[in-house]
């Protein structure tokens, strides 16, 4: 892997590559990929160490993951060109086998936290170092299996486990508040014995701080980073709009999206929703 300083230029190139990949493939899911990309880039260029592991539970952000792996030199330009096409390794959701960095095929929500807990528990039983990270969506916390894991990992104090929740506020067919309002996820995680950090999921410096290993006195249980994000982050006509969970970009929209990203129109998290 080729870890690089997470410069503005590197982030910009990743965002543009993500847009182009989705445009050329003619597929949707771009909104939830843009909300997750800063987190994934921070993980790969700023946090993950050789002994660490990562599970993408929100498998519909596979595109952003592939681009992060491309930025690390794990996937090549030729790989990204095959995204969503016949005979590709890069299916719409993460594949099983073939790419060492992808430990598990995901896409059905609610699996990642349990898988990541299994990896974290294995490290403990084997006396191995390293941390395990897992990125979930926010709608995913409708899944009962997530809460099973939340109970388990809190009870067993899996301090080497860090979940990141991509809180973009939109799920499949409505806002998270409209569909099944969970109120404060922070309070809920704390109640189960988790260490909770809340950050702007598009603030690279804040993500950097949150992704650091907890200092020793803090290590009493698993951690969760509640990352406030914007679906379609950086693209004026996508931000906070549910349809960009699904829609592909047409030529004019793609051109506008590229202009928006290049001009850095992103607003601070929390505004305009």
């Amino acid at each position: 892997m080729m870890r690089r300083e997470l410069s503005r230029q590197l982030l910009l190139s990743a965002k543009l590559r993500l847009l182009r990949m989705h445009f050329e493939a003619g597929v949707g899911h771009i909104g939830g990929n843009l909300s997750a990309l800063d987190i994934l880039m921070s993980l790969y260029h700023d946090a993950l160490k050789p002994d660490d592991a990562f599970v993408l539970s929100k498998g519909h952000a596979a595109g952003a993951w592939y681009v992060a792996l491309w930025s690390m030199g794990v996937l090549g330009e030729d790989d990204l060109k095959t995204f969503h096409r016949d005979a590709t390794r890069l299916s719409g959701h993460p594949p099983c086998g073939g790419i060492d960095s992808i430990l598990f095929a995901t896409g059905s929500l609610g699996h990642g936290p349990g898988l990541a807990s299994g990896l974290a528990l294995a490290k403990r039983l084997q006396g191995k170092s390293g941390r395990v990270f897992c990125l979930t969506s926010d709608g995913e916390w409708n899944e009962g299996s997530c809460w099973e894991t939340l109970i388990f990992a809190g009870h067993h104090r899996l301090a080497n486990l860090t979940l990141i929740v991509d809180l973009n506020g939109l799920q499949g067919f409505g806002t998270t508040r409209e569909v099944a309002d969970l109120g404060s996820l922070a309070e809920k995680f704390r109640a189960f014995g988790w260490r909770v950090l809340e950050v702007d999921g598009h603030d690279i410096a804040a993500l950097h701080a949150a992704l650091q290993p907890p200092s020793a006195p803090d290590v009493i249980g698993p951690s969760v980073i509640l990352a406030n994000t914007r679906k379609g982050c950086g693209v004026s006509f996508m931000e906070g709009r549910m349809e960009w969970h699904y829609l592909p970009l047409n030529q004019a929209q793609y051109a506008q999206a590229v202009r928006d990203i290049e001009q850095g129109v992103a607003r601070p998290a929390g505004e305009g929703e």
Partner: protein
Amino acid sequence: MRTPFCTLMVEAASNPELVFLTGDLGFKALEPLRDALGERFINVGVAEQNMISLAAGLARSGLRPWAYSIAPFVYARPFEQIRNDICLHKLPVVLVGNGGGYGYGVMGATHHAIEDYGVLLSLPSMRVFVPAFDGDLGPIIRLLAGITSPAYLRLGLSEEPADFRLPPYAPWRLILEGGRAGATILVTGPLVGGIADAARKLSPQHRPGIWLLSELPIVEMPPAFVEDVRRSEHLVIVEEHVEHGGVGAMVAAHLLARGIAPRRFSHRAARGYPSGLYGSQKFHRKECGLDPSSVLAIACQD
């Protein structure tokens, strides 16, 4: 089979890679294993989806997890976790389901496992082991300890007849030689014990031969079984499992693929709850025609 299962697992506990997960079950049965494994015995609570995902994570890290519960809670509740997390990745996780078939009797339909191996065998790389007798567990557990694919172990109650001479464990075993004029019965599961016990009392000339199949899917059929099918007038397949996905269809397909057609074919399988009433395992078997006298009546009729 829980007690011999536990004893054998305690023997296997010296393998530092073995991890045993239970979905809050095993009271008065698995305590010795808990003591032997220490931190590698984990009661994950009443949370089977998480248990299976955990097992996948452990196996992906090089450990050898076993996940235990009452049978339907280990294969039906977390089916998607088995499919996606374990089988798609061909991870060596052993699922242990206690109470195969109608094993939990009058506890009711929610606790029965009458479509377990049919469902599981639809998944890639899955292998199924159905011990019929306590003595089958040793060879099966030794095999499972080194298995490289997902597996399901269906535990039941051994019904080994007294003074019955069993051949050594093998996936296919002829456990009662039939008469020249007899049918061929193939059974999967502990209910073979009662059928064999009743059959051995019949006249040697006319009694059916009884084969026992304990591993699925069918990889190959022993020539001696094929010969028995060719020779006998009637092939009867008996299993405490529904017809769909069952041994009956598997055997029939294998035979047809080899151009072998039994002169007569009967299949006795679990049929759910025909009367709408509940009872012991024996009661449910009887309702489905799986009891020894019903099976022999079919096998011995002209």
